[in-house]
């Protein structure tokens, strides 16, 4: 089975946000939200001895994804190919996964009221295409492929050129998005945007956002079901028993 991974060469990246725009367009992401973002570190140091880089952030499809466990409905799951996906039909929009993600890669889509994030363009992969961000990248800075295939570009870049991941001493969840840079860009990005500790839902949040609404929904659905049954029967009339 494949283990999909993305490598972004931060020495090449110019922060143009073509990736974000292509992704937003491909996946109908509402304005102001994104499945992949480009965050500048800004100039660091003192004039004129400065450094800066762009953090091209997206879902890391972690080996040990902290977003899966807190999902109350099972909507967030990881496939055998490593891609972490959201079953939109199951998502109840509680946002537990949003706060659990150490990379802030998820957002609650206000239009659909479902959580959304990068899925490595799974829909495009099925059609034999590369992810939208990869094909549009003006600097050819993004590489996508299978880390278990030694002939793949990503394999060469990760195991041959030492592409690194954004991790910290506290947070090591096996991200599958890697970064290259000849001027220490990955390190600067990791310092500026360290992964945060996954935040698990509290008991109160569980009640407020998952159990209570679910209970209300069930009560509501029960009433609705009763009502539908009642009116259906009213319309059809009482069944006849001709025995």
């Amino acid at each position, binding site marked *: 089975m494949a283990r999909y991974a993305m490598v972004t060469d931060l020495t090449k990246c110019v922060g*143009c946000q*073509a990736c974000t725009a292509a992704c*937003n367009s491909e996946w109908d992401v509402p304005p102001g939200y994104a499945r992949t973002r480009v965050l500048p570190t800004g100039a660091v140091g003192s004039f004129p001895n400065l450094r800066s880089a762009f953090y091209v952030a997206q879902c890391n499809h972690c080996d040990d994804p902290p977003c899966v466990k807190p999902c109350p409905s099972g909507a967030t799951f990881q496939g055998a190919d490593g891609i972490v996906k959201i079953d939109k039909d199951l998502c*109840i929009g509680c946002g537990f996964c949003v706060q659990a993600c150490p990379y802030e890669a998820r957002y609650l889509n206000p239009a659909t009221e479902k959580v959304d994030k990068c899925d490595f*363009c799974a829909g495009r992969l099925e059609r034999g295409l590369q992810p939208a961000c990869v*094909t549009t990248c*003006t*600097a050819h800075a993004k590489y996508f492929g299978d880390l278990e295939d030694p002939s793949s570009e990503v394999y060469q870049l990760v195991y041959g050129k030492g592409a690194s991941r954004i991790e910290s001493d506290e947070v090591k969840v096996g991200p599958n998005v890697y970064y290259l840079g000849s001027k220490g860009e990955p390190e600067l990005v990791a310092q500026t945007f360290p992964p945060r500790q996954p935040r698990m839902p509290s008991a109160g949040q569980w009640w407020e956002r998952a159990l209570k609404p679910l209970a209300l929904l069930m009560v509501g659905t029960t009433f609705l079901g009763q009502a539908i049954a009642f009116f259906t029967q009213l319309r059809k009339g009482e069944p006849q028993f001709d025995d």
Partner: protein
Amino acid sequence: MSNGFSRRDWFRAGALAAAAAPAAHATPTPGQRGGKRAFQIATNCEMCFWRCGVLAKVQDGKVTRIEGNPQHPLTQGRLCARGNAGQFTLYDPDRLKRPQLRVGERGEGRFRDISWEEALDWLAARLQELKQKYGPESVAFFPHGVASTFFATLMKAYGTPNSAEPAFAQCRGPREVGYALTFGRGLGSPEPLDLENARAIVLIGSHIGENVFTSQITQFAEGLARGAKLIVVDPRYSTAAAKADWWLPVRPGADIALLLAWMNVILSEGLEDKEYLARYATGLDELRNHVRPFTPEWASKETELPAALIRETARAMAAARPAVLIHPGRHVTWYGDDTQRARAMAILTALLGAYGRKGGILLPTSFPRGGFKLPPFPEPKRGRADGAGERYPLASEEQGVTNGLVEATLTGEPYPIKGWIVYGQNVLESIPQRDRTLAAIRQLDLMVVVDILPVEQTLYADLVLPEATYLERYDAPHIVETAARPFLAVRQPAVPPLHDSRPGWWIAKELAKRLGLEAWFPWRNPDEHLSKIIEPLGIRLAELKARGAVAFEGRPYIELRKPEDGPLFPTESGKIELYSKTLKELGYDPLPVYRPVADPPPGWLRLLYGRAPMHSFARTENNALLNGLMEENAVWINDETARAFGLRDGDRVVLENQDGQKSLPAPVRTTPGIRKDCAYMVHGFGQQAPGLRKANGRGASDTGLITRVAVDPLMGGTGMRVNFVRPLPPDGMES
């Protein structure tokens, strides 16, 4: 996001989830678009003027997605943020929808909708009146880009020589003139730069990365990945500066001093390409004598850069020669000495033997084209009113001097200008000194704007004509001879025009009909026009339209040239003119001379401006997707300077310039990445157009603060980096 999440919201989410579940299978999932009525159209982009090849995906009559066209010879499937967002301009709810005739005062924005029939009849009658009363020269035309081809034909046929686009006097003009004086030809667009093969890249005020032209970024990144050394000269720590091996935060306006010192090092150390210069150049001795006094130590005082750094970078360039790409820049109207700075850059390129060489500046390659035999255009009775060829002896008579036309309109000299037709440009955003432009417009008998969106200038128009966007129209083909492989690319509609908009070619042709000028439009439809142009190319129209572009063999390096390519250096001498006799005869410096530019007084900052990768000029700020990526600009101020002003990152400020002109409020970005004497902002924001519901009033306008210009005497360009600003607290806020 998780904070403001109420229970009610949650319940709604849950209920919606339950309700939506069965329906979800019926609607196509984004990213898996397809279906019976889906197809794609190959065309080229117009979100900026680079015109990358795109594939517009159409489903059920709507453009749902735009991707790069892998078959486009230059951009090869890559596409920037703007290109990816094109359909949001097409479906912008704020678009101009139907022709409008002004009923209120100019600037009031009161119009009445009229039909195209009425609009075109009305305009043709006004144009005939002006022609009879004041002569056809009294009408000035302000176009921009390839899309204006048909209007340009119309205006020439009408009989006016007065056409001017900001691409010259507010942008590339000095560069075109400076390189033409030196090598015999300008550079053109897209720039013929061999970035990917360069072993050293020198950017002087070019902020590649923030300024995005897709293929230029691709080639720049590729050049760097192959190990090119990068030298960036910029008062600001730009995206490119962060990638540089050497960043030179030059004192603004001292670029010529730096260039002269670089030449001094190269010539005094014998690092120049002697063989190349002996064969192709004239004036080397004069140049050698000229630059002798300009040592790195001398330049260090002017540029505020260490002499050792100047020496080191000069040697780095020489070590990489001839594969040294000194980027000629694009927007280069800075200080009024811009043609001479471009000359200095061209001369340095020549010293390194980098013109017509691999890794340097590419030579253009022509290819044959067909066309209709048009009647000769009427010879205007009076010459140009903008000073091109006279007051500004080296200004392009093809592209003109916009500010020259503003001036002529204001003064009535050399003769009155009574009508403006504005097509595809935004005169209030592109031409500096807005007050003068507005005063000129108020004096006009006729002001016509052809546009997509209700930008500010439409408020001052007598007649507003809504044009179809690039995704809804044909345009003249994009013909590029400056790429390593020259090509022709088509612009064709993906969907029919929305609302009551019309393509530019149709508007021009219909006007021509009413003005009795149809002889200049001898084709029935755009297909016929295009077919004629591609006749000698050996490609069928259908195939070209399916592929989007056709490319030809290029001969970009000296060793590849053939006799049919003409002279290598079409100057008067047939050689590279390091020393310019042309300039000498006109009474200008035959070799570039450095003249210091005034520094800002204490307490003031020099206003610098540039571009952001997700916006083009003032054209895209209302695009929903791009607005979501960047909805306003920030004012970059050095962190120490900001502290002295009592400003913290994110504070909102108004900028006031030396003439008391104020900007709209914008947030401050404090950073060590800019010199202490400068402020920087991205151009295109701070628009004052209520019809642009997303862009209106957002951010600060650099154009509004550019009330002073330093005019380049050679070609009329407006140097715009001569304005000083200071941050003030916004009105009504406590400091």
